[in-house]
């Protein structure tokens, strides 16, 4: 978060900022840490939940080795950036050699998952999602490094196309982990697996899987690859209208659940993510239309989508997962810090809304100038979009404060040796102690 804030101000005032680390080093650090947060939190949650649903005695050895590998690479990657060592591939800017321990870690995750998860044809959809993520993260990480082979590297159209094919699917893979986690928590909150076994749940999973595999071409509409890649991407991307329609159709049910469960912090975070899913889905659908994409591609509208998703959706769900685990382990509601956590959730979401809108405004402005006035120098375009980006940067600072109010009490609660008394009377979780197994 801190590096994101610094990057934002560095972008506006590159020659004025006191931080001497160049933008091309800070940006990859921020991006790598964001991706690490999502993947580590998602994997950690799945590792935590598996023993509760597995019929086997689950060993912690493979997860420990996985964690050690991630910790090691997590330390080596920033050092590599500070030393100016890059592979220069977006999202994976670290030296190519460092993917080896990361890849090994995901192999261990897959082995652990397939060994212990109760996989069968009638399994709840969250297991399908986690399983899909475990398989596709390996496929897509492999694909992301095909550039090492001259056949891919020495043709820029092929290189960029395959690169973004892999990136679209890497994001789809981690979304499978994250949405599966959200589904799992909702099952635990409601006390049974019914919501994860409905035909609609499986259908939506299938829509997500199809998009993971085939919609990535919406990142590369203007790259001069074969037209059918773009047509397939356009058609498949539009299938997410089904998801949007389902969210709208179910808004009353969402509201009813919210009224019953809003006092429960993990649910509050999941509800925030639902609102961001709705907003980001609208934006994603719009920019997946090639006729609109041609104007928004290469602008901050894309950044709005990326950050809206990673912060508003992924981070909210994963913080919900962390809160849920803490509530189970510590039986408290963050003690005296509960109000600070509540304030942090509200502050981070409100500032994210400002953050997101400013990026869209900046992106639309850039797109309009680029196409209406192509003779305008790039520097002048940046001057035109500086005002919304300044507000975006300030919103980023506020969001940083908001998330700090949420995360610090979580860390403190995690460190507690004994459960602390609840600070808010009546703030009890609506959990079925038997968990979703009671319904099986």
């Amino acid at each position, binding site marked *: 978060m801190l590096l994101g804030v610094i990057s934002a101000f560095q*972008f506006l005032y590159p*020659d004025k900022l006191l931080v001497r680390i160049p933008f091309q*080093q800070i940006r990859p650090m921020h991006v790598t840490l964001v991706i690490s947060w999502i993947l580590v939190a998602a994997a950690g949650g799945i590792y935590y939940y598996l023993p509760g649903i597995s019929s086997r005695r689950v060993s912690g050895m493979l997860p420990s080795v996985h964690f050690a590998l991630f910790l090691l690479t997590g330390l080596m990657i920033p050092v590599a950036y500070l030393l100016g060592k890059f*592979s220069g591939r977006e999202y994976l800017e670290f030296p190519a050699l460092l993917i080896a321990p990361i890849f090994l870690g995901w192999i261990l995750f897959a082995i652990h998952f397939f060994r212990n998860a109760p996989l069968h044809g009638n399994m709840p959809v969250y297991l399908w999602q986690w399983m899909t993520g475990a398989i596709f993260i390996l496929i897509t990480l492999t694909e992301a490094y095909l550039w090492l082979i001259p056949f891919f590297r*020495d043709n820029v159209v092929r290189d960029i196309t395959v690169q973004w094919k892999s990136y679209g699917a890497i994001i789809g893979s981690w979304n499978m982990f994250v949405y599966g986690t959200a589904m799992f928590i909702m099952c635990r909150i409601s006390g049974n697996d019914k919501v994860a076994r409905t035909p609609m749940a499986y259908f939506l999973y299938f829509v997500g899987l199809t998009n993971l595999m085939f919609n990535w071409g919406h990142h590369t509409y*203007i790259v*001069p690859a074969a037209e059918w890649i773009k047509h397939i991407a356009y058609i498949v991307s539009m299938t997410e209208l089904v998801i949007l329609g389902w969210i709208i159709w179910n808004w009353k049910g969402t509201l009813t659940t919210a009224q019953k469960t809003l006092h429960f912090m993990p649910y509050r975070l999941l509800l925030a993510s639902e609102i961001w899913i709705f907003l980001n889905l609208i934006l994603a659908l719009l920019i997946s239309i090639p006729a609109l994409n041609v104007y928004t591609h290469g602008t901050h509208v894309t950044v709005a989508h990326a950050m809206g998703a990673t912060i508003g959706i992924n981070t909210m769900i994963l913080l919900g997962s962390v809160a849920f685990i803490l509530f189970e382990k510590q039986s408290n509601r963050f003690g005296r810090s509960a109000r600070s956590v509540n304030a942090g959730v509200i502050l981070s979401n409100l500032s994210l809304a400002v953050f997101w809108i400013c990026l869209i405004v900046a992106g639309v402005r850039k797109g309009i100038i680029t196409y209406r006035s192509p003779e305008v120098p790039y520097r002048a375009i940046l001057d035109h979009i500086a005002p919304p980006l300044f507000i975006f940067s300030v919103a980023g600072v506020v969001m940083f404060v908001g998330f700090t109010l949420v995360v610090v009490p979580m860390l403190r609660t995690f460190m507690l040796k004994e459960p602390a008394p609840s600070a808010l009377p009546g703030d009890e979780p609506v959990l079925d102690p038997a968990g979703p197994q009671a319904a099986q």
Partner: protein
Amino acid sequence: MCAYLGFTIWVYTIGTEGHDGNHTLSASASRGKLVFQRNNCQACHQVYGLGGFMGPDLTNSIEKSEAYVKAMIEYGSDRMPKFDLSAQEISDVTEYLSYVNQTGHSPLKNFRLTPYGTVKVLRSDTAN
């Protein structure tokens, strides 16, 4: 899964073969691409609109002039650091950008929108 596999192989081959206008990446341009990556240029610049926004899209930057591009790489600006590249490396990067320039345009120049929401690139905007 079979559909995905077939689609993947098609993308790797027919879907991208010849779509760079059959322009061959010379040895110099190939080296230049690696220099571009090693210095993490995409953190600030884009190719085909993909990358960072600190600096402009470089897909057709060579159209300004080769001398301009070389000067920017060698001397930097208030937004761009001065990279300590050798003359050979600067030449290689320039060669790489010349190759990219031949494959297409970003942002698109000559196109029309269809009623289906797609974009039709007109002939003059394709590879030189």
